[in-house]
Every structure is written in structure tokens, then in C-alpha cells.
């Protein structure tokens, strides 16, 4: 069986580093500590401990396709999954019986834009509330960088209303479900977390986020009710919530991401959910 993992930094395993060589949280280092993540011992530690691999271990799956990446939006998660299914001809009729897809949806306010020029390794530029704190002049040059700095500030102020991003979010989840069902692909989804801009993770509150942002119109409720709760783990909750419930805030998280314990809890929880519902 092949496990396809989709998600953002929580799925990727950000901040998971070997305490034997990095005892302190790396997020406190300049640049968010991503340099430390690329140390071979830390890569090994991350891949061993993150929930995707924990789940694979419980399910005896050795073949993992990793489509996750830190900062990804739900738009990017969907786009990359479709691209992978297309590249491997699963959209064109290849047998899908050996696949299981795991999707950890990220916070709904994130999006991406197709920048006319290269934006790092691709043309897709990720956008999240953190984009307001970034200066793109170093990456794109003085003129274009300033334009993007201004644009993102305006985008946040003028186009960042919840009524807009919650609509896109529900469309994306619904569309993904339809696609996977139509291709007879086994799958399991969950909401990783809701991101509270300018707040530390210890202050995040799912209920506050939901009441403020996930207020659904009739049409969105119709669509949300069609999301299969036998494939979407705790449809109206988050992995973040379960990790706090089964572990503790201090032990399940590092700074902005789950600790090895948090990942362990979620890997087991996901496996039990899939087992109970005969997904695997």
C-alpha cells in the first residue's frame, strides 16, 4: 500500500529535531531554525516521529509519498495532490486500490497566487498572515519586492474577510472529497489547526476562531453537511484540540508545531479512526 501525505508544516513535521543535538526549540533561532532541520540527524528524527510515519508504522505501510510542505495553503494542498494523481496517471485510469491519501487541512485564511515570474522553486507564491511581516525586496528586487509588500498589506486589509476564505475552504474540501471518491481512492482528512494571527499557539482557541470566521451561509452549510464524517476526522474539530485533550499543551507542542508526543498522539488517533471505519 502507498500512503500519500498532504498538508502543511504540521504534516511535514516542522520543529521536530533530535533533542540529543538540539535540546532547545529551533523556532527561536534566526530564520525559524530551518537550517537545523536540514541536519541529517534531524531529518532522520523528523521522518521517524512525525504523525504520517507513525500512522504508516501502525498500518504497516512502507511506501510514503510526501506532498507536504511548510506554509502551504489548502489551495496548494489540493493543487499538488491533483498534480501528483495526474503525473502518475491515476486520473487517467491507473488502478487506485493500493492508495491511501491522508490530508491535513491547514488554516483556511491561507491562499496562494500564481506569480508571473519565478517565486522560489515555482511560480506559486504562498500567502498567509505572516506575509505581512515579510520583506520581499531581498527576493524580488527593490521595485517588484516593494510592490508585493504593498500588495500583500492591501490584500490582507481588503480581501481577507472570512466570508471569502471560508467559501474557498469549503469548496476545496468538497471538491477533494468528490475527486477521491470518484477515483475510488481510500482517504482520511482532518483539520490540523486554526491559526490565530499574532498569537502564540498556547493562546489559540478553536471555538473563538470558528465563531469569528467559520460562520456559514445556507449554501455553505449544505455543502459542509455533504462532507463525509466517516472520512473527515472530527469534522468540526481539529488535531490541535485532540493533542491537547489527550496530551497537554506543554507536552504536545514545541512552539508552533506538535512535539514528538503530539505527533504520536495524532498518528495513533488517525490509525484508530481508519481502523474503526475500515478505511484500512
Amino acid at each position, binding site marked *: 500500500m502507498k500512503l500519500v501525505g498532504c498538508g502543511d508544516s504540521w504534516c511535514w513535521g516542522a520543529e521536530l529535531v533530535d533533542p540529543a543535538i538540539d535540546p532547545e526549540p529551533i523556532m527561536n533561532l534566526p530564520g525559524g531554525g530551518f537550517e537545523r532541520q536540514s541536519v541529517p540527524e534531524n531529518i532522520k528524527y523528523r521522518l521517524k516521529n512525525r504523525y504520517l510515519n507513525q500512522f504508516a508504522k501502525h498500518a504497516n505501510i512502507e511506501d510514503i509519498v510526501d506532498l507536504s510542505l511548510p506554509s502551504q495553503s489548502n489551495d496548494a494542498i*489540493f*493543487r499538488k495532490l*491533483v*498534480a501528483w*494523481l*495526474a*503525473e502518475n*496517471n491515476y*486520473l*487517467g485510469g491507473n488502478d487506485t486500490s493500493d492508495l491511501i491519501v491522508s490530508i491535513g487541512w491547514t488554516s483556511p485564511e491561507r491562499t496562494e*497566487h*500564481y*506569480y*508571473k515570474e519565478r517565486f522560489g522553486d*515555482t*511560480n*506559486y*507564491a504562498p500567502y498567509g498572515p505572516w506575509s505581512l511581516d515579510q520583506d520581499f525586496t531581498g527576493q524580488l528586487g527593490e521595485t517588484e519586492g516593494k*510592490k508585493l509588500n*504593498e*500588495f500583500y498589506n*492591501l*490584500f490582507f*486589509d*481588503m*480581501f*481577507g*474577510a472570512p*466570508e*471569502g*476564505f471560508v*467559501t474557498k475552504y469549503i*469548496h476545496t474540501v*468538497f*471538491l477533494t472529497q*468528490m*475527486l477521491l471518491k*470518484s*477515483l475510488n481512492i481510500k482517504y482520511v482528512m482532518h483539520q490540523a489547526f486554526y491559526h490565530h494571527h499574532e498569537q502564540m499557539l498556547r493562546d489559540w482557541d478553536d471555538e473563538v476562531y470558528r465563531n469569528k470566521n467559520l460562520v456559514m*451561509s*445556507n*449554501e*455553505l*452549510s*449544505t*455543502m459542509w453537511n*455533504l462532507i463525509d464524517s466517516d472520512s473527515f476526522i472530527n469534522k468540526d474539530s481539529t488535531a490541535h484540540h485532540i493533542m491537547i485533550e489527550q496530551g497537554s499543551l506543554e507536552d504536545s507542542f514545541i512552539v508552533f508545531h506538535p512535539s514528538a508526543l503530539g505527533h504520536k498522539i495524532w498518528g495513533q488517533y488517525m490509525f484508530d479512526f481508519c481502523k474503526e471505519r475500515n478505511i484500512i
Partner: protein
Amino acid sequence: MKLVIFGDSWAFGADLEDRVNTNYASHLKTMMGATEVINMAKPGISNAAITLQLLSWISQPGALEDDPFIVIGWTSPERAEVFFDYSVSKKANLENLYWTTLGPWILIDNWCDNEASPYRPKYHKYVEFYYTMMRNELSCYVEWIQQLMLVEGLLKSKNISFHMHQAIYYNQHFVTNHEKFMHWRDGPINTECMWNTLSSDTFLHKDKTDDMSLYGYLKEHKLGNPKLVNLPFMNEIGDHPNEYGHQLIAELLYNDMTEKGII
């Protein structure tokens, strides 16, 4: 059976003298023997807005009573829907407080000076930056196919009868060109594979590449002279079908639905 139409100015019947009685929706009503026609089409609408409008309509109480049959005329994919913050929409006294469509018309000089526009001159450069720098043909195309997949899946999951067609395709800057329908096989995503997941049983000319859109088909098959500017099935400006054009479209759609056994 009640007939429900979604689409842009083509489905609306823009520029027709007697729009209600001569647009293709009204012809279809007669041909299909529908008890009523509800035409939700709106000029200048984007595909994202058509999708939202359809979802909104379906979720209304009683919408699915009286055996609805839905016809969707998709518009050109480069149009974008943006969600302005409430405060901006309110200041501009917009009827729709949130969603606003961006199209090639935003590139016209002085467009943002229009009193009805939420894009005051000071915002215009940002809107233009978004429209021209943060999207391209590929990204618009990918969004468009996702919208088709979403709507097709939703209607099928709710067992609602429907038929789709593409009215126009890449209608740049008010000039309706006859363009070839191209799949993107290279680049970050192979869109042909996505396209192939859509059903041709409910989409007019889905797998034609030269004349997939209504405009393309009428131009190629009814006139045979693509150099003619003043096309007999189009109005004088050449941006919308005339009465004869609407009649042809209705026949085309009806024949396709009959051949495919949808009605």
C-alpha cells in the same frame, strides 16, 4: 419541470430588444416543455460567481421542488472574483456587499473613476497588479476546471439533472476571438488529466478543441467565414448573440441534451 439557467450575458440575453421572450432560455423552455424558466444569468459575471450563485440557489428552501433542470453557460475563465472587505463595499454603496468581478475591463483607462466602482484610483494599481501579476492563463484555467468539477460533482451527488456548455472562451478586452481550446500538459500541473475527469455526457462539445464554446461552434459551423466581423448570429458590435443566434443556441443545446438522453 422547471428550467433554471445560470450564466453570463449570453445566457442573460444582453442587447436583445425583447430579452425575456427571445433569449435561448425562453426557447429552451418551449422546446423542453418546462413549466417555468428561472434565469439567474448576469452580464459580466465570473465562473466563481456562477458557482456561488448556483450553490446559493440550491440551498434555498423549495429550490429542488418541481423537478428542476439546470443549464449552466460557463463564461470566459480569465474573469476573477474578489472578496472586498465589507467596509470597502459599503463605502462604494454596492448592491452586493462582498463579491466583485474583475475582468479585462479593469485595464481600461479611467475605469476606476466610475462612481459605482469600489476601486478608487488609489486602489486601482493594486487591483491591476493582482489581475496582471498574480494570475496567468494557466492558473485561471486550473481554477476554471476546478469549478467545473465542483459543480458537476455537487449536482450529481444531489441527483439534479443538468447540462453545461461554454459560452465564450478567452474573451479578451471585449473582443470575442475564436480561440483554440488548449490543454496545458507541461508546467506545474497536467490539466488534460483534470479535464478528462469531467463527463462529456453532460457538457456540450466537451472534447472538441476548435469549437468547444458556443461562439466557436456558431462561427465555424453556421457561417463558415471566420473573417466576417458582423456575423449574422451576433449583434452589430459583435459581443453578444442576436435573436437568430439565441435560436441557434437553443437548438444546439436541445439537440445535444436529446442525443445524450438527458431529457
